[in-house]
């Protein structure tokens, strides 16, 4: 057994690429060296190194038997000799085996397993150079190795022996490097056993978890909990330390959104909160140093933050010189999309669409249309040019400051929401309307000019826009017929339907066939669709439902075979007393009950109660009666059953375990 250590030393790797790169390295290593066992694969990384540790590798891969197929015995001795020679043996060493065509020579060869060092030396260059990065570079020439940043050293040790290979002109060895500033100025030798300690002595904490603990234990009190930022900082540092700085409380007059954005997104600082949850005039920064003994780092960071906040205050003041609404004409100069013209045009379309939506949803049309016109105006402000991630939010804040009604300000503020499936939808109906108008406009216009997502390519994030529309309609239970807003745009309704399907399955956890059964019926509002899906889900475990679903499938087949496409109306006088007449009467009764009920669960319960009658009908009655008049009438009965109850769902979509018709 031998332990293997691989350290790929690089220049600083972008934090967000590190975990995927490690996963890829692990997969590739396992695929190449699985036969050496070594289940205990560990990977670790800092900004400057990707590390893989494989414990207890076999010294040699297990031997294997190879079987070479030779000529048939009937081909004669010459052929046998030729084959034996090719295999490096003699005819008397060959065995014989029988197959469909006769008896043939075979040669059982014992293949010795490869030594682990040889295997590593052979395959590691390809594995290292093959690690996938979303954006890579060359540094040794146009046709050289591609990696995320230049590789500067490689440690490859099998126990204490160097596994020699070369990648991008870098030879593997047994020396690593410490922290850029605090560590040894020259490469430091390591062994498998000393590796981690040598790094530690040179101010590198190899393990992400150790760096996390070191940061967490130093964060101090009242620090805003921000796991995502913490996760980033772990891959920004090799020897993290924490400093706590402060800023003048007069900056707290700026909106919290702006202060937080500056601190978090631009400076990667944690905010500090007062007991009441509001911002305290303090921040916490994570450095890649061993403390800050002279307070210089704190001083420097405070100075930068002050400049940033001053900028923000300056932008705020300059931006207030022009009202948001007066900026509308400026949007004509802001590109929405090359093929789709300017944001000015988009704002006008959004406003018209918001008006239609407001009418359909019985909201105040004036509020909706004005909020839609204002929504994109903040794109021309200095604040949004500087803090693009605050688009919408800034518009909302400015609208409020400039005396726009609260409903308008809130709608503008929220209108990019939801930005993900986890994000909340806009808080108010007007906000929901503007968000819908924005996203639907983008979808309609992009589809109109053929900018449609294909495969994994979705440069205009249309899936996200569609998912946002769907989430708003479901979560707010808006009484809106989506289909009407997709009219005249080929491909859009099916695209939206995919997102609806996804939402019901992945977010609401309905089974796919329940969703398909509900979606097979043209849908009005998504709230109604969800209620129908929910009712199917509810009724499904009851004993009558799945057999009834199977019967519906049978009915559908019978009608298809008989080519019945419209109802002729059931003539009750032609019905034969017994199962047939019983079914019809039960049907009429259930139809009545279902019509009077306002709950889909109840409706479905009534429908399911038909099951015994349906079963009996199929058991006793021959639909294809020799008398065409009777036959037509029976088909009409089945047709009525199917259409009447398919308003809720197409039950034939339900996957049943029982016998199928």
């Amino acid at each position, binding site marked *: 057994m031998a332990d293997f250590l691989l350290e790929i030393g690089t220049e600083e790797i972008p934090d967000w690429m590190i975990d995927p790169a490690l996963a890829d390295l692990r997969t590739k290593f396992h695929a190449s060296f699985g036969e050496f066992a070594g289940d205990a694969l560990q990977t670790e990384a800092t900004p400057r190194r990707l590390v893989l540790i494989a414990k207890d590798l076999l010294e040699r891969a297990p031997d294997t038997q190879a079987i070479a197929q030779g000529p048939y015995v009937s081909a004669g001795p010459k052929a046998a000799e030729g084959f034996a020679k090719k295999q490096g043996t003699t005819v008397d060493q060959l065995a014989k085996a029988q197959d469909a065509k006769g008896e043939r020579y075979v040669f059982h060869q014992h293949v010795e397993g490869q030594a682990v060092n040889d295997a590593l030396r052979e395959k590691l260059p390809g594995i290292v150079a093959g690690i996938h990065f979303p954006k890579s570079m*060359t540094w040794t020439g146009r046709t050289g190795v591609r990696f995320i940043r230049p590789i500067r050293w490689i440690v490859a040790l099998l126990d204490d022996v160097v596994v020699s290979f070369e990648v991008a002109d870098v030879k593997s060895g047994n020396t690593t490097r410490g922290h*850029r*500033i605090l560590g040894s100025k020259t490469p430091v030798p390591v062994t498998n056993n000393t590796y981690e300690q040598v790094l530690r002595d040179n101010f590198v904490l190899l393990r992400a978890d150790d760096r996390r603990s070191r940061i967490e234990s130093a964060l101090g009190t009242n620090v805003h909990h921000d796991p995502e930022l913490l996760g980033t900082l772990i891959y920004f540092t090799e020897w993290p330390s924490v400093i706590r700085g402060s800023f003048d409380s007069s900056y707290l007059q700026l909106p919290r959104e702006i202060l937080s954005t500056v601190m978090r997104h631009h400076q990667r600082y944690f905010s500090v909160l007062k007991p009441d949850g509001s911002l305290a005039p303090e921040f916490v920064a994570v450095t890649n140093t061993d403390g*800050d003994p002279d307070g210089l780092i704190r001083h*420097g960071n405070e*100075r930068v933050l002050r400049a940033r906040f001053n900028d923000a205050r300056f932008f705020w003041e300059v931006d207030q010189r022009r009202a948001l609404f007066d900026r509308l004409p400026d949007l004509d100069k802001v*590109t929405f999309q090359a093929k789709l013209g300017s944001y000015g045009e988009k704002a006008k379309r959004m406003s018209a669409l918001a008006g239609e939506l407001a009418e359909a949803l019985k909201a105040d049309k004036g509020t909706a249309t004005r909020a839609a016109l204002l929504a994109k105006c903040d794109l021309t402000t200095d604040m949004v040019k500087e803090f693009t991630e605050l688009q919408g939010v800034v518009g909302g804040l400015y609208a409020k400051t400039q005396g726009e009604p609260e409903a308008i300000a809130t709608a503008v503020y929220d209108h990019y929401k939801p930005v993900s499936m986890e994000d909340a939808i806009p808080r108010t109906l007007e906000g929901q309307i503007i968000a819908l108008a924005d996203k639907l406009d983008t979808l309609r216009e992009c589809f109109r000019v053929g900018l449609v997502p294909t495969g994994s390519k979705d440069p205009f994030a249309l899936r996200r826009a569609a998912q946002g529309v769907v989430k708003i309609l479901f979560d707010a239970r808006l009484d809106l017929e989506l289909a009407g807003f997709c009219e005249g745009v080929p491909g859009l309704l099916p695209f939206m339907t995919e997102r609806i399907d996804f939402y019901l399955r992945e977010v609401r956890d309905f089974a796919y066939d329940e969703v398909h059964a509900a979606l097979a019926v043209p849908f009005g509002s998504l709230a109604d669709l969800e209620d129908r899906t929910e009712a199917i889900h509810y009724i499904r475990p009851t004993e009558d439902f799945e057999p009834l679903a199977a019967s519906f499938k049978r009915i559908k087949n019978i009608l298809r075979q008989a080519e019945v496409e419209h109802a002729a109306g059931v003539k009750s006088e032609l019905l034969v007393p017994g199962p047939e007449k019983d079914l019809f009467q039960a049907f009429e009764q259930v139809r009545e009950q279902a019509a009077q009920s306002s709950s889909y669960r109840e409706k479905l319960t009534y429908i399911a109660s038909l099951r015994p009658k349906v079963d009996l009908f199929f058991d006793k009655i021959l639909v294809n009666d020799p008398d065409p008049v009777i036959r037509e009438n029976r088909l009409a009965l089945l047709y009525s059953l199917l259409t009447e109850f398919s308003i809720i769902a197409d039950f034939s979509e339900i996957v049943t375990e029982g016998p199928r018709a």
Partner: protein
Amino acid sequence: MDTFQDTIFKLKRYWADRGAVIQEPYDLEVGAGTMAPETFLRVLGPKPYNVAYVQPSRRPADGRYGENPNRLYKHQQLQVILKPSPEDVLDQYLGSLEAIGIDLRKHDIKFEEDNWEAPTLGAWGVGWQVMLDGLEITQFTYFQQCGGMDLDLVPAEITYGLERIVAFLQNVESVYDIEWAPGVKYAHVRLADEEQFSTYNFETADVAFLWKSFELHEAECQRLLQLFAKTKDRRRFPVLPAYDQALKCSNLFNLLDARGAISVTERVAVIARVRKLAVGVAEAWVAQQSPTEQEAA
């Protein structure tokens, strides 16, 4: 405490000691040190080259009439090109910070991913913004493509933001308070520039004149490029003057943009026009430099 000019002297000395040619700024309006021919053209082709120079860089849209303590219409970049990039390039860079008086053991240095792309130059690269105690002081880029061509000798481009670094070193809150020379403030040297050019760029520039100029320079550049294609002996062909015309167009585009004179539909098209000139010049330059051309000459 070092003045603005002291810091520049030290950086130039540092890179001169490491074999860089110390050039003077290019004498045309450019938006960044990258656009000076010492970078844009020299990174192309197979010849190694190390060079450093200060480049006053004009960004008309960034002007703030001298009212903002951190924003300038024209700022000073110290641009270093190391072609090819040496293996210890980052250590050399960190050494330059020590050389201007930054004790790295007492400060926090981080390299944050920042990739660079200049569509008008057909150029891109990957790299970092270098953060010193939370302040972005340098753009570091490994060029990958320039003038639409993949680069074989991959250069490192180090761009120091001089105002920021010196304001940090001098511990002042406004760039205008930087001491440029003993007893002479940055404001004394440059404030009038900022006030007057902000006014011109945003308010006074004559749009028709700018468009006319753009078209004239574009036509001259195109004329030269067409001529180049037909010329056999290219040794003395004015490729560099053609590039001057492209640079003029780039600056005029920035002015028109700041002036709010470029509509949406025009914008993409105008960028494409400038790019076409830059890429055309880059290709002509490479053709002129190639060994077969030189043998023929």
